[in-house]
């Protein structure tokens, strides 16, 4: 479940240098560690470049874009190259459209040629079927990703704002190194639990600006990353709130990493708990 919590709008703000340092560090950390975020940033940058070349940015955003992407002669040259590629494609398409009289896509000409080559129909049909299957598979992946994004958004919301204490079921966890002979903490799920709050006891003397938790169920291949967690006022515990529907029967492992103000990772504690019904 390694997914990011970013939107196209927030990525544009990031690319134009409009976010604060904390948000910048959060997104950059995700770019480094999360392939999906990386791709989304690339896609957002592609859109931003296009809007710049089509003069679709506001005056202020245009200035910000130039400040971010054209502040050296080398970067200006890169921009010119990017513009050249676009202009080449646009000019060539216009030329093709003018010479043929009508604009035809490459697929239309492909189909035209197949009418003259019946022996190619079967392989093409097989290819089309394969593409359809891949498309269905991709759609499924996208749906799963969207569901995961919804979960990630919900978790971010739960951990960002204070919640009604009556709706929270709190569970205090001690670090694995300290528990030694104690029995593992168990969470018994009930239908009336609206929010599960894990109080992760922090036994080190130093406290940090934020923390990041990685939650993984034993036996699962994916894990859930929850950044930007904060300690309680006295610094003795870090709160991790989760929607109960993501917790299924099994044993969970939580790795809690402190994040220093310069973005570097600090000490880590590990916790375990089990879920039953």
């Amino acid at each position: 479940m390694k997914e990011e919590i970013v939107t196209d709008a927030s990525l544009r703000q990031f690319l134009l240098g409009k976010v604060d340092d904390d948000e910048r560090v959060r997104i950059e950390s995700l770019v480094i560690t999360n392939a999906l975020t990386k791709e989304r940033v690339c896609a957002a940058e592609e859109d931003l470049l296009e809007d710049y070349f089509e003069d679709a940015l506001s005056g202020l955003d245009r200035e910000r874009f130039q400040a971010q992407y054209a502040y050296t002669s080398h970067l200006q040259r890169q921009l010119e190259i990017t513009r050249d590629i676009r202009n080449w494609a646009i000019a060539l398409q216009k030329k093709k459209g003018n010479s043929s009289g009508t604009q035809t896509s490459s697929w239309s000409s492909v189909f035209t040629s197949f009418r003259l080559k019946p022996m190619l129909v079967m392989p093409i049909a097989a290819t089309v079927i394969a593409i359809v299957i891949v498309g269905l598979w991709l759609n499924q992946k996208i749906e799963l990703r969207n569901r995961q994004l919804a979960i990630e958004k919900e978790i971010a919301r739960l951990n960002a704002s204070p919640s009604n204490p009556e709706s929270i079921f709190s569970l205090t966890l001690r670090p694995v190194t300290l528990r030694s002979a104690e029995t593992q903490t168990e969470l018994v799920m009930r239908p009336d639990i609206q929010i599960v709050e894990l109080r992760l006891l922090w036994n080190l003397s130093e406290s940090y600006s934020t923390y990041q938790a990685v939650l993984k169920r034993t036996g699962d291949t994916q894990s859930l990353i929850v950044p930007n967690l904060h300690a309680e006022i006295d610094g003795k515990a870090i709160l991790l709130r989760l929607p109960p529907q993501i917790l299924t029967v099994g044993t969970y492992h939580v790795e809690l990493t402190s994040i220093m103000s310069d973005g570097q990772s600090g000490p880590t504690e590990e916790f375990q708990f089990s879920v039953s019904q």
Partner: protein
Amino acid sequence: MARDLATLPGTFNEILAWLNSDRDVAGQMYVQLRHDLAKIFTWNRCSDPEGLTDEVFDRVSRKVHQLRQTFSGDPRLFFYGVARNLIKEESKKIRAQVSLEHMDLAANESAENHNDPGMMRAECLELCLQKISSDKRELILDYYAKEKQAKIDHRAEIARRFGMSIEVLRVRIYRIRSKLEQCIESCLDARADGD
């Protein structure tokens, strides 16, 4: 390859081993990490992203042996932490140098005009277009076929045709375009050296 790590095979191997126990996977992570760090330096308006990326690896290489024993978590975040420190150091330099930067750009512009950079870029573009496969060339051509509002429907149609989401299509275009840009930059640098 980082400029110094290649001369220190032991350190380089240790960095790879720290990134991932599978050497092939570690190699890919290393290349991707370099690319990501250079991007981050660019986003933070640093003057020499590639040089700073080398500096990150230099600094980490001095500690990698100890880090492998003590650091827990994704090692890439440690590299990122070092990069953040370098960004802070650079930002102090940028404030002092910004007026000189504009002067340098004006000087470069007049030199470039003399050599008709537009024509050189066009020639390099033509050369580099020959180096990518025809289907990638067609995809780029088709992707940029329309402008402004018309392009949205057109690109949705392309994505549907290839059975992918518009987002996946955008990323694919980004990658093809990036490869073309790297090729064109190398071509321009080679011509500049030849002059």
